[in-house]
């Protein structure tokens, strides 16, 4: 088939074009390195960043029994592999240790903690984290939450028990405080034996999240697939016209549909090469995990390639010459990248912007790749893949009809 030869020729031309390769392969690679490195704080720490046990400053300013028991929770054998508690006397010492990066997270049990628990008043444990350690911070936060939930149950039981004793005349009002402390301590012990203080780690992160390198590897791969197809694919349609090779092609016994089809397939192949190259390169160099479903990844690569090729054909069809195509492409790519979260992560955008991004090429594609990286099921990417393919084919059809005319 002649259109295959046309497509092969176009791919060869791209591979021989150093400037084009610089734009579609080297640039996204460099941008992934820069953005992934610079904006790491906006994303989760990689699991590997946790490494072994991390230092936790524990400042127990409370002299009561309950505060001591809470401090003991962080020193329990169950958490030994996860964290290493470093007792300090005051909140200021704990915060100074974080400033000096001696620890990433600190827990402060306030001076009135036990008293508040006994009185049935709200009591809080304060958790501080270094900005570079959001994951460690959230782990400690989850443990503290489990402890305070446990204490709430004890509080309720204590209050109920003491009230019943007073009502039944079994306790004098002047002995109330001492009895409540004794009962709370007893319930704590019972609770500990019943396992109430166990921390459920799976509740720490309802959604795993991705690292900055993962996010930007996906975002740049998607964004530069548009560069690959529009600046090379769309331009190639018009360059053939401007360089006289299209008129020459039209003097050969090659039907117009084969010429347009060949250009379309060549553009599609260029997008696939760009995406596969970047996926392999970011995996090898930045150790980016693209998830554990090669099938889901293949589906998205194909869907994004179809869609970006359709966009390229459409831009070629509405442009008078390659300069106009360049201009339209640049505007489209920049807008879609900005709104679609290729530059700034969607998580930091306002809610309205997040909703709009889901109607952009970049937004749909980025989100689907992130879903694959998070290990979500295949069904999570089927709808975005379908939307991209349908939109791409529709644009390719409209553009092709115009170009073949």
């Amino acid at each position, binding site marked *: 088939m002649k259109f295959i030869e046309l497509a092969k020729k176009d791919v060869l031309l791209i591979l021989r074009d150093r400037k084009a390769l610089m734009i579609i392969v080297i640039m996204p690679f460099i941008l992934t390195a820069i953005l992934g490195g610079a904006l790491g704080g906006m994303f989760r720490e990689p699991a590997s960043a946790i490494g072994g046990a991390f230092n936790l400053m524990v400042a127990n300013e409370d002299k009561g029994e309950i505060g001591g028991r809470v401090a003991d929770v962080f020193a329990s054998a169950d958490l030994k592999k996860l964290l290493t508690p470093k007792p300090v006397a005051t909140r200021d010492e704990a915060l100074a240790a974080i400033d000096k990066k001696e620890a990433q997270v600190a827990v402060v049990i306030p001076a009135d903690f036990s008293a508040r628990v006994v009185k049935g008043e709200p009591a809080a444990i304060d958790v501080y984290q270094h900005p570079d350690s959001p994951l460690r911070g959230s782990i400690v936060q989850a443990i503290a939450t489990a402890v305070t939930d446990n204490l709430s149950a004890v509080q309720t039981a204590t209050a109920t028990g003491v009230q019943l004793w007073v009502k039944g005349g079994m306790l004098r009002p002047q002995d109330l405080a001492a009895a409540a402390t004794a009962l709370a301590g007893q319930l704590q012990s019972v609770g500990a034996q019943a396992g109430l203080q166990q921390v459920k780690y799976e509740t720490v992160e309802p959604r795993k999240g991705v690292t900055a390198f993962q996010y930007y590897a996906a975002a740049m791969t998607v964004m530069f697939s548009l560069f690959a197809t529009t600046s090379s694919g769309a331009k190639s349609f018009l360059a053939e016209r401007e360089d006289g090779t299209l008129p020459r092609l039209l003097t*050969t*016994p090659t039907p117009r549909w084969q010429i347009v089809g060949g250009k379309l397939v060549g553009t599609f192949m260029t997008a696939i090469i760009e995406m596969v190259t970047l996926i392999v390169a970011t995996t090898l160099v930045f150790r980016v995990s693209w998830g554990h479903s090669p099938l889901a990844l293949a589906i998205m690569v194909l869907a994004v390639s179809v869609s970006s090729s359709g966009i390229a054909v459409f831009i070629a069809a509405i442009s008078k010459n390659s300069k106009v195509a360049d201009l339209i492409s640049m505007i489209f790519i920049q807008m879609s990248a900005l709104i679609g979260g290729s530059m700034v992560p969607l998580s930091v955008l306002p809610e309205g912007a997040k909703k709009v991004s889901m109607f952009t090429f970049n937004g749909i594609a980025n989100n689907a790749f992130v879903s694959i990286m998070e290990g979500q099921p295949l069904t999570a990417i089927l709808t975005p893949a379908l939307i991209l393919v349908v939109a791409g084919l529709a644009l390719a059809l409209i553009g092709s009809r115009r170009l073949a005319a």
Partner: protein
Amino acid sequence: MILEVKGLTKSYNGHPAVAGIDLEMKDGEVFGLLGPNGAGKSTTISMVSGLVKPNAGSIRIGGIDIFQDPLASRRLIGVVPQDIALYPTLTARENLAFWGHMYGQSGADLRKRVDEVLELVGLADRANQRIDKYSGGMKRRINIGAGLMHRPKLLLMDEPTVGIDPQSRNHILDTVKELNRQGTSVLYTSHYMEEVEALCDRIAIMDLGKVMACGSLNELRLLVGDKDVITIQANVPEGKVLDDLRAIPGVDGVSKDDGHLRVVAPYGRKVLGDVVTRLAAGGVKVRSIDIKEPDLEGVFLHLTGKALRD
């Protein structure tokens, strides 16, 4: 007939580029379209190759109406466009193979033909070099080669020697002769009369979208009759001197280009004295004078009253 053109007309914005021309080309002929820039030669070639749709008229190639069966007629023609229409970052071999594919060739036949064409255009030793490293003349030779891949019956060549060195030009002219010797018919447009005189069996002289005359070189010369052409090597300014020469009784036409002045007259020797006198009066320094039988330039001058390169 390999090519039959009847009543071919094309206008752009109301201006006729080709105004109802008729042409017939026999099998095995080298047929020249000669005329100045804007005469309608390239528009005619574009219509014959199917790129431009005429406003009126018919074109048959090898008996096939090109509008009724365009794909079949395109198999019979090879087109060599005026501008280089190749892929600069591909090698000569890759370019030829690609165009061969577009004409339906493949496999061993294609590879063999690529080698043959490289030999024919004299670039077999540079076959694997990217053509953006080629000289202008070498690119033109590959540009011709791309049109020969499928052994066309009719080769359409639109000003194939524009802007190249004499050595490459001679190579191209030799290639055209060799192709014709192998049986290929060639429609050749040029505004270089020397090329057309050297190559073509028959010539159509075009001006302002019309065929002014058509025939062999000798038949065209007869149109001028037994008039002489006086060729004078001198730099003559536009204006009064030329008007004075045209006013000499017995002078039929005067033209000038690139330091040459041409005067057509029935009896060259009779008017020569007046011509020299008026040139001297105008301060023109004459370097040489020659009187000979009319060439195509003279024929064109006789037919249109102006020079080919005016």
